[in-house]
């Protein structure tokens, strides 16, 4: 077994699929059959995950972010051995996902984005007992593991309730409980809070960070679309785009990638018509947009993205010089979402 300094150690992982695309073959063909003759079907290799390498340490909560189709779920599915990599490999607890898939599964708990395999008419306890039993636990272990998993996710009081009667938040918790059955040192969570109301989502986030990661010391790889979630709980994040990792660091540092683009909010009254144009002419200004404030006649809320925050003094000066009344000047720090949008180039 290889070294387990890093419970998750991904080494040059690739996953490609063959996809069919059509290309115009002969635009000069005419007639009723033209549309089919003009097209030529090509098989194209598409990389869902390309040359991904990173490690996750002990008790680390690592967030994988990216737009739809970035390759996050594909990566998770390869790590939990559901998908076979095209190239490269990964070590989970020192076990190779290619060579030792059973050991990988035994030491990993996985929650997929769309999780199935539950039996609606069975209770939470019966469902979990089934999964514990097929995982090879003895009868006494089955009972203790199921109890422990239910207690950990706070579903002990609902243990004998049928799965079909659970709310979506509780179902998600049961997904996590199932992943915890083998008491795995590594957890792979694919959008664990998706579809949950804000309150349940916050509870689950806290639970993942405090209980699973900090207190129980598990290493967690979590994918999410929720930037607030990633910012709040992750020790490090990676931004994935078109199958590649384009940024990887602590959330604060990832935000620094776009920190030069500070947003300044200015609220001013009695503004002359040319004020916005005058501000826009400044070299440090990247973009500017404004909208009137209906409660205050002749007032504007100006939102401007600038290269240098010190330009706020110049903006205040322009407002004062034009005879306007400056009500508010506020800086907005870039969020992780800004970083993701900028880095992936998507709106």
């Amino acid at each position, binding site marked *: 077994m290889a070294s387990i300094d890093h419970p998750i150690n991904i080494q040059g992982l690739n996953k490609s*699929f063959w996809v069919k695309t059509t290309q115009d073959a002969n635009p000069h063909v005419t007639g009723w059959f033209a549309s089919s003759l003009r097209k030529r079907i090509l098989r194209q290799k598409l990389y*869902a995950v390309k040359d991904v390498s990173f490690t996750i340490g002990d008790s680390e909560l690592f967030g994988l972010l990216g737009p739809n189709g970035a390759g996050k779920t*594909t990566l998770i*599915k390869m790590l*939990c*051995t*559901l*998908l*076979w990599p095209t190239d490269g490999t990964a070590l989970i607890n020192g076990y190779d996902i290619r060579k030792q898939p*059973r050991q990988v*599964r*035994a030491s990993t708990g*996985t929650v*997929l984005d*769309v*999780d*199935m*395999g539950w*039996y609606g*008419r*069975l209770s939470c306890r*019966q469902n979990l*007992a*089934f*999964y514990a*039993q*097929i*995982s*090879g636990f*003895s*009868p*006494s*272990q089955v009972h203790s593991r199921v109890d422990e998993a239910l207690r950990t996710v706070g579903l002990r009081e609902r243990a004998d309730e049928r799965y079909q009667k659970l709310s979506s938040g509780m179902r998600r918790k049961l997904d996590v409980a199932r992943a915890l059955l*083998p008491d795995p040192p590594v957890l792979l969570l694919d959008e664990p809070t998706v579809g949950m109301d804000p309150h349940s989502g916050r509870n689950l986030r806290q639970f993942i960070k405090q209980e699973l990661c900090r207190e129980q010391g598990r290493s967690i790889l979590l994918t999410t679309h929720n930037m607030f979630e990633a910012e709040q709980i992750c020790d490090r994040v990676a931004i994935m785009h078109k199958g590649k990792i384009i940024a990887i660091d602590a959330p604060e540092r990832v935000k620094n990638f776009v920190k030069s683009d500070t947003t300044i909010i200015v609220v001013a009254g009695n503004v002359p018509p040319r004020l916005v144009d005058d501000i826009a002419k400044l070299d440090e200004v990247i973009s500017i947009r404004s909208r009137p404030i209906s409660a205050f006649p002749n007032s504007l809320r100006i939102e401007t993205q600038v290269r240098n925050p010190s330009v706020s003094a110049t903006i205040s000066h322009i407002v004062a010089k034009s005879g306007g009344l400056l009500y508010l000047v506020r800086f907005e720090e870039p969020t992780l979402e800004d970083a993701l949008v900028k880095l992936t180039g998507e709106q």
Partner: protein
Amino acid sequence: MIVNPLFRLTYSIYGFFKRDALNAMSYKFEFGTSLISMFITALSMGILGIVTQSAQAPYMTKYGGMSAATFILIGSMTNNFLIECQIAPREIVNPGVTERALLSPCRLPVFILGQMSWGHLWSTMNFVVYVLVGVTLFNMQLQTINATTFLAVLLLGILCMWGLGIIAAAIQLVTKRWDPISWFFFAFTQFASGIFYSPEALLAFDHSGILYSIAWCIPHTYVFDMIRQSFIGRSLTLMLPSLLNLSVLVVVLFGMGWITLRLCIRRCQVEGSLGWA
């Protein structure tokens, strides 16, 4: 705690069985009506035998002059059992189930056996109901049964059907559609392999004997024939050619099934299509 591997394996399979049993019992009305249906179907098979007794009589000499009711009851109950063996492996392609099981450390053979366990108990119950109806109402004789022959043939039949079922399940795992293999065997077995009438009866309207020859190429025909012979006390040594043919079919189908399933799972893992979508 060191657990005996065999016990652990059995306990894992029991996990699947318990899950399906709990699920089935939760639909109490359906469970009850299914039991009643078994008795009604068995009864109708026996009556069918009485009605067709004179027409079937010439073909019964091979089975020691067995009554047509017993002949049909044995054919029907064995067929139900074989059908269950054939369709049970398809449980492994249920949406979500395969993906979830492959996420656990559960071994593939345990998963397959476990998924089929409840279905097999159900078909065994069906078998018992037919025997009960046959013995009590249609003079089915159990005193002459050769238990060794019966169990050996049944075991070979189960293995054959598992092989076929696993091939079908593997194809379905990739295509996500109904497979042609199951269709062929269901259709042809009903028609030619001797559930309700002896395959020899086919020669009465197909003088070329093509259908009769094809019937003896499928495993069901051998199983029906040898099970009936076991009911009149024949030993395996008296059926060596059939036994050999069936054994070859077991090796071929079971081997093919296992290889096909592994290949199809790997293909789905490469393509990312283990889920239903």
